C-alpha cells in the first residue's frame, strides 16, 4: 500500500477521562438540565418512537426550594410522603451503622446507598407490594420500604445463627421471596435478563404482576443488559429496567461504560423502548416515572427503561477509598442536592413537616437501628467459628443431597483406615 494514502494520520486511541480526580475541583460546568416541571408527561400508550427525546432530557418535579412543579407531580398523600421520608432516613441510619460495624470488624463487607435512597424507596412505594424486584446490591431501600425486618438484614450481614441465608452469602446479598426481593447475586447485571424472564412468565400466566430490576451505569456494558433489553422489547415483557447512573463504578467514571457521548437512557431508543431519564435525587420524579412505567407494563404495553441520574455519595463498598480516585467534596457539590433534604423541604413547604419533626424522625431512625443492632449482635457477629452446622453447608445445592455430597459431608466422621 502507498504510505501517502494514509497521510495525514489522525489516529489516536481515545481513553475517556473524568473531569476531576483527587486534588482537582469538582467540575459540573456546562451541565444543563431542563427546569423542574418543564418536561411534558406522555400518555401511557404513547409510542416509544415519539418518546425518544426523553432520553436526552431529565424529568424533574421538585425545584431546589422544595416546590413540586409540572405534569409529572404525582398524586401522593402527605402521609405517604412522610412514610417515604422515614424509610429513607432509616436506610441512611442503617447504612451508617452497618458501615461502621464492618470497620469495627463485626462483618467482612458492606455497601451503602448514600445519596441514592430515593430511588429504591420511591420505586418500592410506586410498585404494587407483590411486584417482583430483581435488585442490584444498592437497593436495600426496597426491603426497608417493604418493611422486611431490619434485624433479619443484620443477621444476614453478620452471618450469625439467625441468618436467614444460613451464612452462605456475602453480607448485604439479601433474599426474600415473601417481600418479592430476588436473591442478590453479587455478579453484575445477571439479574436483568432474569427479571425479563420472570416478567415474561407473569404475562404468560396472566397474573397481573410486573417485574422491576436495577443495575448500575457501569454494568450496562455487560452483555446481560443488552440481552435483557432485546428480550424485553421483543416479547413486550412487563418489566421496568432501571439504570442507576451514580457516576462511578468503583473508580471508573461513567464515561468508561459509554456515558461520555450519550445518555444511558438513550440505550432504550435503539431497542424501541420508552427511554426516561429522571433526577434520581427527586423522590417525586422517581415515584411518578415509576408509576407511569408500572401502569404501562400492567396495561400489557411493554417495558420501560429508566435512567436515574444520581451520585454515589459513599465508597463503592467497604473495600475502596474514594478519596483515591475522585475529589473528596464532589458529592457535596452535586448540583441536584440530597434526596432526603429535598423531600424534607417539600414536606415543609407543604406545611406537612417541620425542622423539629425531621430532627426527631432522624433520631428515631438512629435509635431504632441502634436497638436493632444490639439485638442482632446479641445473637452474634461474623466469626471464624461459624454457628451453622457442618451438614447445612451441603444442603440446598440440590433439592435432595446426592450421594457424592453426602459422602463429602460425612468424611470427617469416618475413622482413619486401620
Amino acid at each position: 500500500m502507498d504510505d501517502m494514502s494514509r497521510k495525514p494520520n489522525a489516529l489516536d486511541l481515545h481513553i475517556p477521562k473524568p473531569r476531576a480526580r483527587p486534588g482537582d475541583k469538582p467540575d459540573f460546568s456546562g451541565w444543563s438540565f431542563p427546569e423542574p416541571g418543564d418536561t411534558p408527561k406522555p400518555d401511557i400508550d404513547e409510542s416509544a418512537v415519539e418518546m425518544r427525546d426523553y432520553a436526552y432530557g431529565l424529568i424533574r418535579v421538585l425545584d431546589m426550594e422544595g416546590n413540586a412543579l409540572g405534569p409529572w407531580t404525582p398524586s401522593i398523600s402527605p402521609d405517604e410522603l412522610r412514610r417515604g421520608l422515614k424509610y429513607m432516613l432509616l436506610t441512611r441510619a442503617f447504612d451508617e451503622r452497618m458501615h461502621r460495624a464492618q470497620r469495627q470488624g463485626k462483618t467482612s463487607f458492606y455497601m451503602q446507598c448514600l445519596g441514592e435512597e430515593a430511588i429504591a424507596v420511591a420505586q418500592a412505594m410506586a410498585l404494587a407490594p407483590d411486584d417482583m424486584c430483581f435488585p442490584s446490591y444498592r437497593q436495600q431501600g426496597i426491603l426497608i420500604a417493604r418493611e422486611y425486618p431490619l434485624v433479619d438484614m443484620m443477621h444476614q450481614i453478620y452471618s450469625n445463627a439467625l441468618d436467614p441465608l444460613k451464612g452462605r452469602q456475602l453480607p448485604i446479598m439479601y433474599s426474600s421471596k415473601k417481600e418479592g426481593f430476588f436473591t442478590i447475586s453479587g455478579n453484575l447485571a445477571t439479574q436483568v435478563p432474569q427479571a425479563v424472564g420472570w416478567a415474561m412468565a407473569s404475562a404468560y400466566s396472566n397474573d397481573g404482576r410486573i417485574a422491576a430490576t436495577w443495575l448500575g451505569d457501569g454494568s450496562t456494558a455487560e452483555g446481560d443488559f443488552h440481552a435483557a433489553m432485546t428480550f424485553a422489547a421483543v416479547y413486550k415483557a412487563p418489566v421496568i429496567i432501571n439504570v442507576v447512573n451514580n457516576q462511578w463504578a468503583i473508580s471508573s467514571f461513567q464515561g468508561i461504560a459509554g456515558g461520555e457521548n450519550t445518555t444511558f437512557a438513550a440505550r432504550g431508543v435503539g431497542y424501541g423502548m420508552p427511554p426516561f431519564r429522571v433526577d434520581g435525587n427527586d423522590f417525586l420524579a422517581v415515584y411518578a416515572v415509576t408509576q407511569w412505567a408500572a401502569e404501562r407494563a400492567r396495561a400489557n404495553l411493554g417495558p420501560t427503561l429508566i435512567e436515574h441520574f444520581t451520585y454515589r455519595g459513599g465508597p463503592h463498598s467497604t473495600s475502596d477509598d474514594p478519596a483515591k480516585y475522585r475529589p473528596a467534596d464532589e458529592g457535596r457539590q452535586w448540583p441536584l442536592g440530597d434526596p432526603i433534604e429535598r423531600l424534607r423541604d417539600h414536606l415543609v413547604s407543604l406545611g406537612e413537616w417541620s425542622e423539629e419533626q425531621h430532627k426527631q424522625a432522624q433520631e428515631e431512625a438512629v435509635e431504632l437501628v441502634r436497638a436493632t443492632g444490639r439485638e442482632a449482635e446479641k445473637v452474634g457477629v461474623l466469626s471464624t467459628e461459624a454457628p451453622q452446622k457442618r451438614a447445612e453447608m451441603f444442603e440446598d445445592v440440590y433439592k435432595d443431597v446426592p450421594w457424592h455430597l453426602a459422602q463429602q459431608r460425612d468424611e470427617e466422621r469416618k475413622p482413619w483406615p486401620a
Partner: protein
Amino acid sequence: MASMTMIQALNSALDTMMERDPNVLTFGEDVGYFGGVFKVTEHLQQKYGAKRCFDAPISENGITATAIGMAVYGLRPVVEIQFADYMYPGYDQLVNEASRIRYRSAGDFTVPMTVRMPYGGGIRGGQTHSQSPETLFTHVAGLKTVIPSTPYDAKGLLISAIEDDDPVIFMEPKRIYNGPFDGFHDRQVSPWSKHAASEVPAGYYKIPLGKANVVSEGEALTMLAYGTMVHVALAAAAEAGIDAEIIDLRTLVPLDIETIVASVEKTGRCVIVHEATRTSGFGGELSALVQEHCFYKLEAPIERVTGYDTPYPHSQEWEYFPTPPRIIKAMRRVMEG
C-alpha cells in the same frame, strides 16, 4: 408402542409434558414455527400455540437467563441451545446463577429448568458444531447433567429432567439422532427402527436421573460410556470378541456409582470412553472414582479412550473420533495388564 428416532422420542417427551403441565413451555433459536434445526420441537407450536413454543433471539445468554427468570416464577421452561458449542455466551448464567440460586437463597428460590443441547461429533460439523463440553457442566455444583443413548431413554430421561426441581443440562448426542452409529463411518448406518430401544410408549413414563444402564453384561472388563459412545463401545466389543460389560451412565451428575463399582469389582478391568477432550474430561473423574472404590480389585491400569486435546478438526474427524479400532486397542491393553 411405536418405533421412534431419538428426535421423535424427544419431541414426544416435550409433547407429553406440554399436554400434562401448562407450566411447561419451550423456546430457543428456530424452535417455534420451524420446529428447530434438528426438528425436536416440530409441530409443538402448531399444537400448543406460539406462547408455549416460540423462537428466541440469537442470544444464548438471554435464552438461559430468561429461562431462569421463568423458572424462578414457577414455570418449567425447556430451552434449546442450538448446538452445545453455542452454550458459552450463556455459561455465566448457568455457573453463577442457575446452579446457585437455591443455595444462596437458602431454598427460597429454585430453578426447575431444562437446558437441551445437541452435542458431539461424527457429523462433519467442524470445531463449532461437534464439541462435547459435558465436564463444563459436571464441574458446577448445583447442575445435573444427563445424556441419553437411545430413543427410549431419551424420552424417559427428558421427562424426568423437566419434572426435576433443579436445573438440568440435557445433552443430546446428535450423531445418533437418526440411528445408532457404531463408529464405523465407512459402513452402512442402521436406522433406529432396527433397534429394540426405539420402541417408545406414546404416553408418560420416566427413567430416573442418577441410574445407569448395563447395556451388555460381561465378565472380561467394564466399559463406561455415554451418548454415542455406548454404541461405538458395543460395536468395538463385538468386533474384538471381548466379553465386555458395557455401562451406559445416562446421568453424569448425579452419577450411579453403585452400578460402576459393582461391575468393576466383578471384572477387575475398566475402559472409559468419551468423545470429549481428555485433559480434565469426565473420564478423569470416572478413573479417580474407580481407583478410589475398586483399587484392590483392579487387575490392570484403567484406560481412557477419548477425543484428543485439540480443537475438533474437520477433515481429520475420523482420526480424532474415538473409533472402534482405538477402543479395541485399549481393551487389549487392559486385558494384557
